[in-house]
């Protein structure tokens, strides 16, 4: 089977056992996976080959994951990076994201979660790279930043996902069930979580503006209203 058309993933991980396992798991899912066992090798492979995604461990011999990530960004390689780490402190997360990582996963993780993140990252970076605009709202799917009337709005990851979903289907009503499935992967409607999130999202996006962009369609769902 040739690798043509399949997404290529580089796994940089110094523990051979885990590296091999991740390679197997990713290949079973239909990706092409390569491994590198230290930071320098990872950086070399990432710079000389074209990958669609890099799974990068933080604690690496020779060159740590943060350094690999910033070196890649310095070279202008904007491939999505998913960081793996054993430390679950905020500082580490902030450090990783500020060095240009796109997502962050704490070891030990479940492979379901790993695959979900990989899938989400690949989807995020495929195609839809341009900034989305609705009225005075701008949404950048790559840097995951949102501005309204030029002012930056801080959104939690889930809030961003909901807003992106609504903006992409601008003018169409999205059902609660569809949002829950798309954003949370949940298949139930009993939960009132979406109401809470929509409330927050409204507070952040529409508060203080005459033009309310998010509209509730009673009994159906939500939509971005540009009329």
């Amino acid at each position, binding site marked *: 089977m040739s690798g043509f058309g399949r997404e290529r993933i580089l796994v940089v991980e110094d*523990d051979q*056992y*885990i590296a091999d396992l991740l390679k197997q798991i990713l290949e079973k899912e239909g990706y092409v996976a390569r491994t590198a066992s230290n930071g320098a090798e990872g950086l070399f492979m990432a710079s000389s080959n074209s990958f669609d995604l890099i799974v990068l461990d933080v604690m690496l011999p020779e060159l740590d994951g943060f350094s690999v990530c910033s070196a890649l960004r310095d070279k202008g390689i904007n491939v999505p990076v998913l960081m793996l780490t*054993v430390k*679950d402190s905020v500082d580490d997360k902030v450090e990783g994201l500020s060095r240009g990582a796109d997502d962050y996963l704490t*070891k030990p993780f479940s492979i379901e979660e790993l695959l979900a993140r990989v899938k989400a990252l690949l989807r995020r970076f495929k195609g839809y790279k341009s900034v989305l605009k609705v009225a005075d709202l701008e949404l950048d799917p790559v840097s995951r930043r949102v501005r309204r009337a030029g002012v930056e709005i801080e959104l939690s990851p889930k809030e961003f996902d909901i807003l992106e979903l609504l903006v992409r289907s601008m003018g169409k009503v999205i059902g609660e069930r569809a949002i829950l499935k798309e954003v949370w992967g949940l298949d139930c409607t009993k939960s009132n979580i979406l109401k*809470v999130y929509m409330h*927050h999202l409204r507070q952040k996006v529409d508060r203080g503006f005459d033009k309310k962009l998010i509209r509730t369609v009673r009994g159906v769902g939500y939509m971005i209203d540009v009329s």
Partner: protein
Amino acid sequence: MSLRRKIALWYVSTLVVLFLVFSLSLCLLLKKTEERSLELELFAKAEELEDALEQAPADAWPGILKDFPVQVAQIYEVSADEIKVLLSKPQGYPPLGLKEAERWAKRGIKGEYLLLSESLDGEVYDVVFMKLSEETPVKIVAVASSLEGVTKTVRHLVLIVLMVMPLLVVLAFLTSNILVKVSLTPVRRVIETAKAISVEDLSKRIPEVETKDEIGELVRTFNSMMEKLEESVNAIKRFSSDAAHELKTPLTALKSHLEFLLRENRCSDCEMELRQVLARVDRLIHIVNSLLVLAKLDSMDVRNLKNRVALDVVVLEVFERFQQQAQKRAIKLLIDRVDPVEVIGDAVLLSQAISNIVDNAVKFTPSGGEVRISLVKDGDKARLSISDTGVGMSQEELGKIFSYLYRGDPSRSERVPGIGLGLTIAKRIFELHDASVKVESDPGRGTSFHITFITQD
């Protein structure tokens, strides 16, 4: 009493005692010397008078006696049965020592002197007796001088000493205070530095002093002690992070591999066993995480918590994470109201603390029950409530739930996985964030946790 006062007090009292001893010795010595010189003078006078009297006829004696430069001079005549005063200067002066004169008349040899002290009218005199001639009736000459002068000198000296004393005490106290203050300044610095040192910042040292005295040694000892302390604390911190890596790497491999085998359906005949092993691995991961969080909490300082945390987002994330678990156990996990709230702290730790309480609520609520979460903002406070319709707890149990490794009634916790660290960790994290925790419980009806945060606007 401060060390400074103590040293000054010791210094002053020692000085006073030394001064007293010195003054007393001085007075005694002065008294002795004065007396001695008075005696010598008296002897010389006696000799001179003897010579003058011997060379002159007896009728010239009153004239000689009168002109002789001495305070008191008397001549006695001692016969076989009586003794009388022949001449006296000053005129009519009481006899200086008739008994002694009589004794000297019998035993004494011409050319020898007898010295004694006689008290007369409360005044002390030094008296010298000598024999003027051997033939009877024996004539005895007595020359005397009062000791009044000596006593006066000594008394003066004592007066001076008593006057100088208070002045000396005040001066000594002032100088000692200043001296001690100056020499204790480095100790003050040691104290100030020691106060500024905490587990979070062990890098502070006291500026080294060049002196080879005790203070210099104290500073060097303190600094080397800090060096060792800093090393060992760093070693502990390194250990925590090394342990995290060393433990989590094999656990990651185990968990991923087991999940991979199950996902691929590779061993359909031992799927049950694999799932059981995976459940144990998950529990082990939970324990390792709990222990690492505890270790981290122990070495943590409130001052390190400075990030703004959107507590509502943390609460919602926890809520999402427990959806599946709650569904599996047929428990309704509901969110009542979540106000946007910001607090200062560590989002990961807060998430862990809230998860631990929700986890507890879900575990101890029977199927068909409810767990409700709400976050309500009220002024500068925010109240997070997690209520369940679970088994509840007695008052006695309530007092113990936050203690280390407590796991509740054994009959029902047997079936519930966990190690009893969850609530301990949660409470410590909340305390670290200045949040107060209140628990209400009704056995058989449910438990409510109320955590009150101070918000950041």
